[in-house]
């Protein structure tokens, strides 16, 4: 297992390298740079733009720029954000807690809902309830998240006034007080529900199908033959087996957790990684954009590895070698 992990980790290095080349090239292929948004006779002039391009090395050949960027990245330095005037790592560090709070809450909601719905659907397969659940799931999958977000805001924040419409914290609260945490929770709940409840389809169907399949297995027939109660069969025997594939999905969720939700965060003005990413793409703030992409790349690779390892852990039939 340890050997396997190390082998996988080493295997990641060329992949990361290749992705970094792709990310960098794609970023540089976009027309414009952080300074092209500065075309404005009121606030700057062409000489200043030219001078800054030279200073930031944007006029150098692309391979030179790549090597300079990469040598920083290996040392953990992603450079400075031109737009924000601060080191990229600090900027991401600032936004990360928000994204993790939102991501975790959404994940909990997704798993909770998917577990409940999947269990019901699996047990009462092809019933009206099952069809209703599938209908909900596919509808949720089909509705774009910004539509869901806007509807949720109009209904719950603006018309009903239950929760605030945007931001991650209310005004006039002091950090560290109970009020502060309540305010934080109040601001997170709506985006988390929008994010979490709309993503249940895959998990629910996974669980449902696995339960249906398991219910036809020999050990279930044995249990039934022995007169075990139906609820015990489902809750004890089938559910335990069927949860295995769901658990392994956790690995894949790691990248999602840190990557933030670009659209939901933007609409809720929730200052997380996703919001920062959109902002950076718009402003052509390469250093931030590339840092986030690289971070997600590495997290996705690690997530895949974790998923594989978890698989081996929870399911002894699978040998990792």
């Amino acid at each position, binding site marked *: 297992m340890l050997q396997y992990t190390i082998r996988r980790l080493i295997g990641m290095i060329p992949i990361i390298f290749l992705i970094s080349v792709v990310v960098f090239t794609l970023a540089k292929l976009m027309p414009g740079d952080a300074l092209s948004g500065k075309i404005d006779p*009121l606030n700057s002039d062409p000489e200043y733009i030219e001078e800054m391009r030279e200073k930031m090395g944007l006029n150098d050949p692309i391979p030179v720029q790549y090597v300079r960027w990469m040598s920083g990245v290996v040392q953990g330095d992603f450079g400075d954000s031109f737009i924000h005037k601060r080191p990229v790592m600090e900027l991401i560090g600032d936004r990360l807690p928000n994204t993790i709070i939102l991501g975790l809450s959404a994940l909990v909601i997704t798993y909770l809902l998917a577990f409940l719905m999947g269990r019901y659907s699996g047990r009462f397969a092809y019933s009206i309830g099952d069809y209703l659940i599938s209908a909900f799931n596919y509808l949720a999958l089909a509705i774009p998240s*910004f539509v869901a977000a806007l509807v949720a805001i109009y209904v719950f924040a603006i018309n009903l006034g239950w929760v605030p419409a*945007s931001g991650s914290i209310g005004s006039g609260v002091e950090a560290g007080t109970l009020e502060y945490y309540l305010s934080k929770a109040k601001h997170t709940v709506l985006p988390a529900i929008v994010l979490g409840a709309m993503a249940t389809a895959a998990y629910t169907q996974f669980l449902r199908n696995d339960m249906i399949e398991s219910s036809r297995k020999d050990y279930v027939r044995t249990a039934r033959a022995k007169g075990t109660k139906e609820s015990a069969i489902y809750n004890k025997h089938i559910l335990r087996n069927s949860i295995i594939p769901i658990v392994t999905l956790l690995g894949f969720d790691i990248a999602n957790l840190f990557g933030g939700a670009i659209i939901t965060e933007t609409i809720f003005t929730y200052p997380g990684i996703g919001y920062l990413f959109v902002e950076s*793409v718009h402003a052509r703030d390469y250093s931030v954009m590339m840092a986030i992409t690289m971070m997600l790349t590495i997290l996705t690779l690690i997530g895949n590895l974790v998923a594989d390892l978890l698989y081996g852990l929870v399911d002894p039939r699978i040998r990792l070698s």
Partner: protein
Amino acid sequence: MKKSALWLLSLLLVMSVFLAACSGGGEKASTDKEPKDDGKASGEAQEGGTVTFGYTQPFKGVLSYAYYEGEDDVNALKFMHEGIFNTSEELTTVPGLADWEMSEDNTKLTIKFKEGIKWHDGEELTVEDLEYAWYLIADPTYEGARFANVEMIKGAQEYKDGKADKIEGIKIIDDYTIEVTVKSPTVNLIDNIWSYPEPKHYYGDISSKELPDSDQIRKNPIGIGPFKVKNIVPGEMIEFERFDDYWQGKPKLDGIVYKIIDGSLTQGLVQNGEIDVIEAPKDQWETIKALDNVNPQEVDALSYSYIAFDWGHYDTKKGVVVSDNKKFQNKNLRHAMAHAIDRQAFIDGFANGLGKPLNTPFPSVSWAKIDESEINAYEFDQEKAKKLLDEAGYVDKDGDGFREDPEGKPFTINFDAMAGAETSEARAQFILQSWQEVGLNAKLNGGSLKDFNLFYDTIEADDPSVETFMGAWGLASDPDPAGIWLSTDKWNMWRWYSEESDALIKKGVTFPEDPSKDVKEHRQEIYNEWQKLVNEELPVIFFEQRVDAWAVNKRVGGVKLYADGVMPNEVYNWHIVE
């Protein structure tokens, strides 16, 4: 990257459809929910209360005038800090907390501060703080874009280049008086010189390069304005509280909250009172304007859009534009193309009427704006456009419905415009159709709109496919057209070369030969001549001056918006009305 761009585009498209559906419902909700209040700010002014100012882009948090870059940060700065001079409604510079005097030969400027003005930490404001700001900007490591506002001081360039360890032209006379010697006399010195002091005692010895990332600017910034920063939630919200020792008197509000929201929620948040003051997105203006709790304000903005003809290219070696493109040299053709477009219909249709046709590149509020009766208004007149084209020899010879050029060759016009807003495509089509209706074969260059970056990249590179393009410029409060209009300017995007125009522009910033003549009057005469010239020559079709729409909640009084938005020296007057 491509994917996320696509995503955003589709997001915008669907959102617009959705919003259109949504706003109808929202309006209805407001009529039966909100109590009717039709007295416009009729109640008594109250002490205390908090006002929320909204904005739709996240702020970066560079809270210093010398370093900030975008409107997102300056919105917040206006509540906490202010310059030493004010701007009048006619866009001239007037004395504020400091007065000034020019020497006889216009080379020495003496600035005199009022006494007893306090920074938020209780220290007194002195001229050293202004001198310090100049030094920060002229510092060799300074990375902002403000050097042009300090460059005119004698010795600033040498200091920036590291050839001198002091700026020669600055002389402190006492704590409240400072004397500046300029390189050469200019008429608009007072409008251009940097006038925002920075707290020298507070920044300590942080270098000019590190300042923008320092806690003194990002976490606990101070100023001399009516409100001081209490709490900053990065990118999301800034809370301000009253500064009791403000120099114009104690502000009436307890505090101001600067809050970032998503633009698509503006109408809802204004309606339910979460946002009190905000510049409304133009596409939602129709419904926001009609809300019961809103005092709508429409303000002429300092920006305009234009449709430029491509005249040639920029000769980088010589640093001058060369008007070598023959296509649009015929003046009748340019005039006809202007007459063919119904600008008012365009504004009404796409911007809820928030705009005004304009015919010279000066803002309508400027003192230097020429009287409309003296210039050609290029009113919408298809018959006139057709007649002009006939006269110029652009007639349809092969009967395909489109005119050929005077030599009988097919004549097509490429048009470029920026993508981004949901109506961009429709706007471009409107203009193409206007030209097609008078028989000009106009089409979108490359068949599609370009995003902001690609648009300017293509135009700046003088791509040969570019023939006409629709862009926009901001307008400075000083009318000097240099920077865009001189033949040596790189941002003379349409590459129009005119010695006559150059001469007038240069003359516009000189002092009158007869020293008894009023400088403003002298400049006005020159600028009138220049405006007549560009209006007649029409190197670009001046399209529309924008109008900004502001929603102000009726519970807030004393709020007046200007072309620049909020006026920092008036914020202390904001109050809650009963």
